[in-house]
C-alpha cells in the first residue's frame, strides 16, 4: 500500500509506478484468416506477456489497492463489511455454471436457490414477493419505479402521476433512476431534526405523486420515527412508498420495511448480505413488493410447486431489466451468507453495526449533529475541506468516510463502520479522525504522503481526458 513497498519491485526503467501491460510488451498480429479479407480486421495490437510476467503484474497491482481485508473501510452508505471467504467456494462449484437458456427441469438446483433466496428476502423485508433480476441497487430502484409506474398505468393514473418525491439527502441514484423511468423530480427539503418534515411532505405530495423514495434509517443515520404517518400521507395522496435498502443493515431482524408501510423496496445484496463489492461491482439489487404489485414484476419469476421449480411470467409484467436473470453468482453468495447467519446472526448484525456507529461517534472530537445513530453518522469537518481531511486520513492507514455528502451537513464526513470492526479498529479510526483534526491546513492540503500515489490531480484528468494507453505519450 505504501510508497516504499513499490520501490522494492521497481525492476524496470519506468520510475515510480508499475508499468502498464502495454509498456511491458505490445505485439501486433497480422490477421490471416480463412474468412474473406473484407470481413476481418487487418491487425490486432495488444500486450503479449508470459504467465509469470502477468502474475507479477497483477499481484503488484493488487498490492497497490485497499480492500476491506486491508483495513477499516467506513464508507458511509456503502456498507463495506467483511466478506466471509466460504461464499466464494460455493460460487465456484462446477454445477453453478449453467447457460441462461437451459430449461427449468434441468436446472432445479439453481432455481431452488433462487426460490429460497426470494423467500428469505421477502421475510427479511416484510414484503410479499421478491424478484432477484436487477443486477445492482440502482437497477433495483429503476425496476421498482417501473413496477410502480406500471401499477399506476394499470389503474388509469399513469398520465396523471408524473412526479416522484425524494428527500434532498437521498442517494443520487434515486433521482437518476426515477428520471430514467421518465418521472419529474420533486425534492423534499429536510426538517430541522434531519428527518422528513411532515408539513413539507404534505405540501409536496398530491394527485401527481407516483411515489416517495425514502431511505430509513436515512443517510444521516437517523430512523424516520414518523414512518407510519409518512406512509399514510403518501398513500392518502394515492402514491406508493418506495424503500431504498442501502441502509437495511441497521434494521436486520429488528424492523421491516413492509411493516412500516412500504409498497416496494430494493435490497443491496452486496451491502447488507456481505457479497464482495469487487472494486465497484458486481452487486445485486432484488426488489420486494406487496401483493398489489406482484403482477407487474419482471419476467420470469421463479415459483415452487410440489417441490418442482418453474419459471413463470407475471400477469402484467414490465418485461425484463437484465438480459438474463441478473447477477446469479452474487445471489448465490448472499444465500450462503444468510443461511450461515440465520435469525440470531442477522439480528446480531444490526446490533453490532449500530453499537459500532454510536461508539465511534462518541470517540470523535468533531461536531456530529443529530442522533442517536443507526449504522452510520455524519460528522462535520466544519470550516475545513472534508476532502482534505479524507486525504490526510489515508496517511493513518485507514480508508476515510464518504465526503461532502449529504450536503445538508457542512463538509460532511459520512461514516459507517459496520459490525465487522473490532473495538480496537474503531479506536484506530477515531484516533485518525482526531489526529487529523489537530493538524494544520498545510499538512491537510499536502496529504497524503505515505500512500502509493500522492494527491492526484483530478482537474487535469477531466480537462485532458486520457482514457486508454493509446492516448498516452509514452
Amino acid at each position, binding site marked *: 500500500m505504501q510508497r516504499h513497498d513499490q520501490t522494492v519491485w521497481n525492476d524496470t526503467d519506468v520510475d*515510480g509506478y*508499475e508499468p502498464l501491460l*502495454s509498456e511491458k510488451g505490445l*505485439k501486433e498480429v497480422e*490477421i490471416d484468416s480463412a474468412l474473406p479479407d473484407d470481413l*476481418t*480486421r487487418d491487425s490486432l495490437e*495488444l500486450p503479449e506477456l508470459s504467465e509469470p510476467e502477468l502474475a507479477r503484474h497483477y499481484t503488484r*497491482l493488487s498490492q497497490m489497492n485497499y*480492500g476491506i481485508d486491508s483495513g477499516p473501510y467506513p464508507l458511509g452508505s*456503502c456498507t463495506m463489511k*467483511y466478506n*466471509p471467504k466460504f461464499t466464494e467456494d*460455493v460460487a465456484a462449484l462446477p454445477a*453453478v455454471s449453467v447457460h441462461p437458456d*437451459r430449461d427449468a427441469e434441468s436446472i*432445479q438446483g439453481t432455481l431452488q*436457490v433462487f426460490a429460497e433466496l426470494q423467500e428469505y428476502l421477502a421475510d427479511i423485508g416484510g414484503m410479499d414477493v421478491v424478484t432477484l433480476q436487477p*443486477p*445492482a*441497487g440502482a437497477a433495483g430502484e429503476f425496476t421498482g419505479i417501473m413496477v410502480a409506474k406500471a401499477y399506476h398505468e394499470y389503474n388509469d393514473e399513469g398520465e396523471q402521476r408524473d412526479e416522484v418525491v425524494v428527500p434532498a439527502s437521498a442517494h*443520487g*441514484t434515486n433521482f437518476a*433512476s426515477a428520471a430514467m*423511468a421518465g418521472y419529474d423530480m420533486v425534492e423534499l427539503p429536510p426538517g430541522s431534526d434531519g428527518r422528513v418534515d411532515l408539513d413539507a411532505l404534505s405540501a409536496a405530495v398530491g394527485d401527481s405523486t407516483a411515489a416517495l423514495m425514502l431511505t430509513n434509517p436515512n443517510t444521516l443515520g437517523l430512523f424516520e*420515527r414518523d414512518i407510519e404517518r409518512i406512509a399514510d400521507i403518501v398513500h392518502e395522496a394515492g402514491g406508493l412508498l418506495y424503500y431504498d435498502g442501502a441502509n437495511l443493515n441497521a434494521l436486520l*431482524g429488528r*424492523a421491516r420495511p413492509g411493516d412500516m408501510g412500504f409498497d416496494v423496496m430494493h435490497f443491496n445484496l452486496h451491502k447488507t448480505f456481505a457479497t464482495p*463489492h469487487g*472494486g*465497484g*461491482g*458486481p452487486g445485486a439489487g432484488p426488489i420486494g413488493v406487496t401483493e398489489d404489485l406482484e403482477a407487474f414484476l419482471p419476467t420470469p419469476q421463479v415459483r415452487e410447486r410440489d417441490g418442482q421449480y418453474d419459471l413463470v411470467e407475471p400477469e402484467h409484467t414490465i418485461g425484463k431489466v*437484465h*438480459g*438474463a436473470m441478473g447477477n*446469479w453468482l452474487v445471489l448465490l453468495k448472499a444465500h*450462503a451468507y*444468510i443461511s*450461515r447467519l*440465520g435469525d440470531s446472526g442477522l439480528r446480531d*448484525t444490526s446490533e453490532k453495526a449500530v*453499537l*459500532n456507529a*454510536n461508539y465511534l461517534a462518541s470517540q470523535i472530537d468533531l461536531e456530529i449533529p443529530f442522533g*442517536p445513530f*443507526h449504522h452510520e453518522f455524519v460528522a462535520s469537518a466544519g470550516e475545513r475541506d472534508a476532502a482534505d481531511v479524507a486525504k490526510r486520513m489515508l496517511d493513518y492507514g485507514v*480508508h476515510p468516510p464518504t465526503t461532502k455528502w449529504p450536503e445538508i451537513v457542512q463538509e460532511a464526513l459520512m461514516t459507517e463502520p459496520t*459490525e*465487522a470492526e*473490532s473495538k480496537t479498529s474503531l479506536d484506530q479510526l477515531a484516533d485518525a479522525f482526531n489526529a487529523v483534526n489537530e493538524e494544520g491546513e498545510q499538512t491537510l492540503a499536502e496529504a*497524503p504522503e505515505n500512500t502509493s*500515489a500522492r494527491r*492526484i490531480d483530478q482537474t487535469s484528468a*477531466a480537462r485532458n*481526458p*486520457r482514457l*486508454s494507453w*493509446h*492516448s498516452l505519450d509514452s
Partner: protein
Amino acid sequence: MTIPPDSIDVDQVHRDDTSDGTPFAPHDDSEVEEMLAAVGVDTVEELFDIPESVRFEESFDIDGVSEQRVRQRLRETVEQNEDYTEFLGRGHNSHYVPSIVDHISLRSEFLTSYTQYQPEITQGFLQALFEYQSVIAELTGLDVANCSMYDAATALGEAATLADRSRRADGNRVLVPDYMRDTHRDVLENYVEGAELVVEAFDTENGQVNPETLENELSEDVVLIYVENPTIEGVIEENLTEIGELSDAYGALYCIGSDPVALSLLQSPGSVGADMVVGDASVLGLSTAYGMGLGMFACDEEFLRQVPGRLVGASEDSDGTRAFTLTLQTREQHIRRERATSNICTNQAWVALRTAIHAASLGPSGLVSLAEKCHRLPERVAAELDEIDGVSAPVRDCHHFREFKARVEPDARELAADLREEGIAIHALGSDEIQISITDVNEHRTDDFVQAITEVMN
C-alpha cells in the same frame, strides 16, 4: 474441499452453532460493556430509535448453520442441475477461463475493495480498469470505453438513450434487426421508455441486414440503428460499412453489438463507421454463469460527455508521477442526480478485471487463434451434420462465428429432448430448426455430438 461424506449426519454434528449471533463481528462481552458505557447507555436496545409499533419481534425461521453445513447444503442443491455438455449460445457464449484469472482476481485487495473514490490507495484497480478500457478501445477501434455496464442488454439500453441525448435532430425511433434476442429487446424497451423512444424491428434477409431493405425504414427521425456481428444466429454480417454510410446519411447513430473474442478477428466497428459498440465482454473471464455478464460499452470521442457509467483516466500525482483516477464524474448520478448520463453506481468492475486478465493471458496471438477456431469449428461441424439424412446445415448461406442453425426433420424439439438423454443441450427453434454453438469449451465433444445426432436421426 473438506466436505465430509454424505453418510455423516452433519445436521447432528453442527446443529445450531451460530445461535449466539454473527460469527463476523469481532466483539467480546467486555468490549461491548466498555462501548456501551462510552456511549452512555445500558443496553444496545436503547440505541434503536424505532417506534414500538413497527418493531419486529418475531422470527424468520432461518436456522443459522455452520460454514461446513452451508457449503454442503448448497453443493447438494446446485448439483441437482443436470450435468450437460452445452452447445447453447444465442448470445450467451462461453470460453475456457484460465486458472490465473481466478487466482489473481480473488486476491482480496481486489475482491473486497469498492469504487475507487480515494484513488491514492486504489491505484491497482484503477490501473487494471484503465488497461481493460484500453483493450476494449483496441478491439472496437473506438476511442472511449467505459469500465462496465451490467450486461449486453443494459449496455444497449444505455446506447439508445445516449443517442437520444446526443443527436441534434428530433426523433424517437430506435431500429433493431428482427433477429435480435427477445430478452435483450425487452430490456431495451424498458430502458428507453422514460425517454419516450420507440423500438422498431426491421426485416433481415437470410439472417443478415440488407442495406436496401434497411434504407426503406430510414427517415430523419431515427436516432439509432443497431446491428449485431456476429448475429444471434452466428452469422457474420457482410454489409457493415454500407449500414454505417446509411446511418450517416440519415443522421442516426450506429451501434454494433459484438464481443471481445469476435472483435479479435472480425471487422473493427470503428473501421466501418460505428459510433458505439455494446455487447457482453464476459465471454472472456466468466463462464456462462446463468447469464451474469459484463456489459461492454465503447463509443467515439465525440460522445465523451454523454458516456454512461464510470471512466478511468490517466493523470499525475503531486510528485508528477503518473497516476490513475475516476474522471469526468460530473456526468454521474452522485453529482448531476436526475440529469446524470445514467443511474449506474455499482457496476461490474470485478468482472472487467477478470476480462482484462483473461485477454492479457491470451495475448493478441491467442485471441486471434481462439477467434479463428470459433469460425472454423462450427463450419466443420455444420458440414458433418449436413451429411446426415434429415439434417441440412447450415441454414444460412454465409460465414459463421461460433454458432449456426441447422434444419432437421421431423421435429427439432424431439431431437433436442433425445440429445438431452445423451447429456447434450442444444437450442430447438420451433419445430424444424436447431442452433448449435461450438467453442473451445465443448469442442472435445463435437464428435460425440455428431454421432449422437446421427444415431437419433436414424
